[in-house]
């Protein structure tokens, strides 16, 4: 007993000192910040969307934005600082600025794929920007602003892999995330993969790829580009075999907010913020900015 109690005391002491001497900042502070151009958006203080129930409720207070947190250069939260970065995060900031909210008035919320619709309809988040593909199935439950980007399902492979086109995937082992649309699609007969492995996250898939346990990882090219930038030995094929128009998710029926978000996207596409945001994030993969898609006011 004595030993155990001493051990507990030691652990407790360690925990306390550890908390006490936690460093501020992030291990990557010196790496980033130099080359990345500073992005900032002018806050539209005159914003007025009073027909929108969602906007009226948060007006002058804080806006809750849902996003992903584990996709580098897209929707990413630095674990040591809690800072959000990536293309989706920038799009969210642009829209928030147009709606009258600066960075200090944004509450970021990490919302996983499975919980997006419920979070939007329950008001858990006011709008959602995070690789959210617009499709008819989802339109039944939520509304979409945008699209603000046109992605497509692609393959992440080893730099010297013999997979050069999506057709080469026949008979190979592919990994994607449990329950995701890309996983469902790659399981279709026409791709003829030998095994579609389901993992709990893309990072696990990428690790499997690095270990040689699978031959490719598949999902939207935007997501894959982030991992390609993190892992020297990997590359994205660059031959997407699906169309994934990314939209901004919002509560069903809030037309005023949808219009305001569409306006915000168009404004920022025109004034060059869209391209700047792309160059600072996804553009780091070396692929130049595509033409932004036309906003679809359905």
């Amino acid at each position: 007993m004595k030993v155990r109690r001493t051990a507990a005391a030691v652990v407790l002491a360690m925990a306390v000192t550890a908390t006490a001497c936690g460093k501020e900042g992030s291990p990557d502070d010196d790496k980033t910040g130099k080359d990345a151009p500073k992005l900032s958006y002018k806050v539209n203080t005159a914003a007025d969307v009073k027909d929108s129930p969602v906007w009226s409720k948060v007006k002058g207070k804080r806006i809750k934005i849902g996003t992903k947190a584990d996709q580098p250069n897209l929707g990413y939260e630095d674990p040591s600082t809690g800072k959000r970065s990536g293309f989706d995060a920038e799009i969210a900031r642009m829209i928030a600025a147009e709606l009258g909210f600066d960075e200090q008035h944004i509450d970021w919320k990490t919302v996983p794929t499975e919980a997006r619709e419920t979070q939007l309809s329950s008001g858990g988040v006011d709008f959602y920007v995070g690789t959210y593909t617009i499709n008819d199935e989802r339109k039944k439950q939520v509304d979409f602003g945008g699209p603000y980007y046109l992605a497509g399902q692609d393959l992440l492979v080893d730099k010297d892999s013999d997979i050069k086109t999506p057709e080469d995937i026949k008979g190979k082992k592919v990994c994607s995330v449990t329950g995701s649309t890309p996983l469902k699609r790659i399981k279709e007969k026409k791709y003829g993969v030998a095994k579609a492995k389901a993992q709990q996250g893309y990072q696990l898939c990428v690790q499997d790829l690095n270990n040689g346990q699978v031959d490719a990882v598949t999902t939207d090219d935007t997501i894959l580009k982030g991992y390609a930038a993190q892992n020297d030995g990997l590359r994205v094929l660059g031959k997407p075999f699906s169309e994934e128009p990314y939209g901004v998710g919002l509560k069903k029926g809030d037309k005023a907010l949808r219009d305001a978000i569409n306006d915000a996207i168009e404004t920022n596409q025109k004034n060059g913020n869209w391209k700047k945001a792309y160059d600072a994030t996804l553009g780091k993969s070396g692929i130049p900015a595509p033409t932004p898609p036309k906003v679809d006011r359905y």
Partner: protein
Amino acid sequence: MSASVLYDVPGPKARRRNRVYGVISTLALLGLIAFVIYRLDDTGQFQAGLWDDYQYANTQDRILEGLLTTLKTFALAAVLSLALGAVLAAGRLSDHRWVRWPTAVLVEFFRAMPLLIMIFLLYYAYFDTEPMWALVIGLTLYNGSVQSEIFRAGINAVPKGQSEAAYAIGMRKTQVMTRVLIPQAVRSMLPSIISQLVVTLKDTSLGFIILYEELLYVGKAFAERTPPENGVYAFIPMVIVFGSIYILLCLALSSLATWIERSTKRSRKGAPTAAPAGAATVMADPSHSADGGSRDGDARGGGPKAD
């Protein structure tokens, strides 16, 4: 252990042989540990970049937050399951058949269902925005049923003479329960109750699967967000750090159970109801379960502690 009757007191030759076995098995185990460490190092799990995050205040705050979430969930589930357990046990000990039967069916059903399946149901059907309640209610239903069986067994284990004597002096059923049976039963049940609480604590980690932001989920999120070093993500460091936290938490709780088990045994010395002397069995020393769990719990509670 030295008093074990499974083998003779070793003579010089046996001692030598045991020493040889000891050395071989120690070497084998050390070799295994060394191999594990070597492989982990070889696959780049100890690269500084994967561990750096843990020294930053923000990271530690998040871990603390996850820990508090886990503890809060556990506290809620523990209190609720004990309450439910008491109610169900009362139902099963009732004199009325129409109370006894439905409670028995309920208890058996919830004990037979995989907890995760129940949590899934609660999550998808009723609490899809509130995973915490799916988890807490699932844990309460399952563990409450198990606790009720522990209560029932404990109360039934009090010698019959006690309740007979109480009825003989004119006490009513409620009085017999609260004044005579429960106070005596609690002592013997406490270790089993606490080891079931350890199970409850362990099962809070099921929240991970329904994306509830408890400790394990926080850990996985860290591992995913830490940039990889040479193609290695920070999953193994995460498992090492968060695994230790869980094991320490559970160990602390189960050593409480062992401690209570021992101290109640001591205090009952000389009482006629004391457990039959352990000396009459193969393992002469009954108190050598150094693992901190309660053997009573496994044997009596039927052992489904494994979840």
